[in-house]
């Protein structure tokens, strides 16, 4: 079965690793997979997306209205990208906003609750606060692995728990593996208990 997964966030949040893990897990399960990423100037603090397409597809980018799942590392970016989502698609979204640079002058900062309220009105959502769930790991940088765990636990990723965990072992340096596995399990629990 085809599965389109869009990952979005702000440059530097670790979206690329998340997409690589999903793609290689799908390959491991002998599925056809394609993906595409934002590379270049926009990586420097701009909005970034990764498109992962499992199953037969032609366009390297997911067409609007086609994504089964949106993994949003930032609430404003989730809203920016829900045009990609299918009508019955699922959004897993970090509720902690990343203020745009210069937001400090107040006019470009925004209210994250406006974004989460809007998402709730439009689609099926799982909300998660990256600061709270990542507290025990010491950095929000582990959120990319947590969110993969949530998607796996909620059974919306299209690849199995075992293959994703295998990919963590293959792709993450030994030194950081244990903590990343914990982050993945933490997400898995959240996902398993989520109501969507």
């Amino acid at each position: 079965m085809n599965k389109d997964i869009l990952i979005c966030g702000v440059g530097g949040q670790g979206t690329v690793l998340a997409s690589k893990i999903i793609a290689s897990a799908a390959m491991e399960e002998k599925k056809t997979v394609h993906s595409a990423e934002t590379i270049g100037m926009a990586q420097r603090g701009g909005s970034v997306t990764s498109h992962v397409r499992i199953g037969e597809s032609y366009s390297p980018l997911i067409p609007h209205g086609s994504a089964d799942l949106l993994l949003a590392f930032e609430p404003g970016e989730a809203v920016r990208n829900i045009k990609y989502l299918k009508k019955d698609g699922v959004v897993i979204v970090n509720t902690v906003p990343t203020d745009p640079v210069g937001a400090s002058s107040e006019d470009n900062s925004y209210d994250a609750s406006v974004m989460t309220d809007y998402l709730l009105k439009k689609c099926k959502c799982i909300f998660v606060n990256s600061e709270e769930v990542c507290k025990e790991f010491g950095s929000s940088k582990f959120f990319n692995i947590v969110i993969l765990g949530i998607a796996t636990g909620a059974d919306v990723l299209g690849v199995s728990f075992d293959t994703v965990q295998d990919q963590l072992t293959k792709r993450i340096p030994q030194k950081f593996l244990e903590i990343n596995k914990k982050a993945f399990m933490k997400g898995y629990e959240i996902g398993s208990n989520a109501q969507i």
Partner: protein
Amino acid sequence: MKEYLMGNGAIALGAMAAGVNLVAGYPGTPSSEIIETLSKYPHEGLHLEWSVNEKAALEVAAAAAYSGARAMVTMKQVGLNVASDPLMSLAYVGVKGGMVIVSADDPGPISSQTEQDTRRFADFCRIPVFDPATPEEAYVMIQDAFEYSEKYSTPVLFRPTTRVCHAYASIDVEDIYKPREYEGFVKDSKRWVIFPRLSYINHGNIEKRNVSIAEDLSSYGFNSVACPAAKKAIVASGVSYSYVKECLKGNTDVRLIRVATAFPFPESFMLEALKGADEVLCFEELSPYIEEQILKLSGRHKLAIEVRGKLDGEVPHNGELSVEIVAKILKEYLGEDIGLEQIDVSDSPGLPVRPPVLCAGCPHRGSFYAVKRAMQGKKAYFCGDIGCYTLGNAMPLDMVDTCLCMGAGITMAQGLDHVNEDATSFAFVGDSTFFASGITGVINAVYNEADMILCVLDNSTTAMTGHQPHPGTGKNMMGNIVDKVDIEKVLRGIGVKTVMTVDPLDLKKSVEAVKDCASLKGVKAIIFKSPCIAIAKPSGKCCVDSEKCINCKKCIREIGCPALAGTEKGVSIDMDLCTGCGLCEQICPVEAIRDLEGSRS
């Protein structure tokens, strides 16, 4: 073996499967990963280099191809402008070993100055061009490009676009790299020395040969027709073909013609493909090249066919195409709705704008800010260049008044100086750009007596394109440690008398250096030297003493570091982003920012 590869990786491994003997290039998005991929796979017997610029790369490769070796050159589309001088001549001379020039186009443009079309360059030079639609195709097509190059003794262009270069797919690749055997250079001045007489003769031969190539390409497998009986036809090329296929899923009532080789235009293929069609709609990014060829064809052969596309305004001239744009146009053309049902987002709340910015801790921020501080209240012009430091234009730094092309900042500062006597002209150039095309500009300034200050932002890497080494880094792509070319010595050697090297993260000393230079006549240079923060280990972290912070936000207003955020209670520093560069610390008027205890190693 199966590999999950980026389009650029597919091009790299495809070239290896073709036994390529030498690959040279200059980094540029979206082409940079081709050479990077090659360096990561076992490649004994392959000469691999980041050349100093695209012109150098092409000349290095041309001589290898004269020797019968297979050679590949990689660059982005604007790099082809730099390499166009040798390429135009090489097209007349031809090659012996297969030679493929990969020039990656960037519709959008996403990371480029122009939306130029490499297929037009192929036409201009009169050499073949291949246009892959997917990474899978790119792997096969690059090998075909080498075959055609050798068969017709001509350099061949290969033109992927961003969405092909940066898309990933699983590809079955050759396990072992076997470099081609070749004869070596054989002297033959009638063949390898270009003279007017040779160009005259070869010009005629090339036009004749191109007729044969067009015939040959008319049966090329990637030029294809589906559903040839339909009255309505669509022509597509490159990634646009993938978009059309995505839209047409299941629809078989339209004739889909794909052109993978725009030049020499495969006329007999197209005549056959269009037979019996009433109208044809062309989808191609950048210029309406194929559309124009079909119009020419229909004029010469008096075809009763309506040609639609960019030229009649249906398909946009600028920007990328997408499934959405193609679907909308196809809906009109085919009279059926082929789009997907979408969530209504017409009531979306306003979203924050996120322009790209210099990273937290980027030393360029210090360089720009020091010049800004030193020249406060004085009339000065700031000529920028191509690289991360183009981002110095963003507020609040606002330190880039001009930016044109690689190396232009240095020479434009001279032009500004010659006609604006009351202002001080500055040029900002990165280390890699300095080597690529900056040095001749400095010589020009010395020779023609310009008054200017050159600021070399030396972060010891080619940062914007993904941290490639260059002559100043002491490493090359053969994995060897080599002598570093010293920028300060180069500048002194070409006649710059005042050359200062400072640490841009030391604000006081940097401002002093700029003030000193501004008081002198002639060409002065300041090398702001500090490693790119994306590859250097951060030196520590800064923190705000909330007791002392008066919430004036001067730090944020002056330097706009992404790690700084304003809150009601005062400024806060994002510990995940801060690298401890200390620039904000030097700006704070009440000394509220300091090193986080124990963060310095």
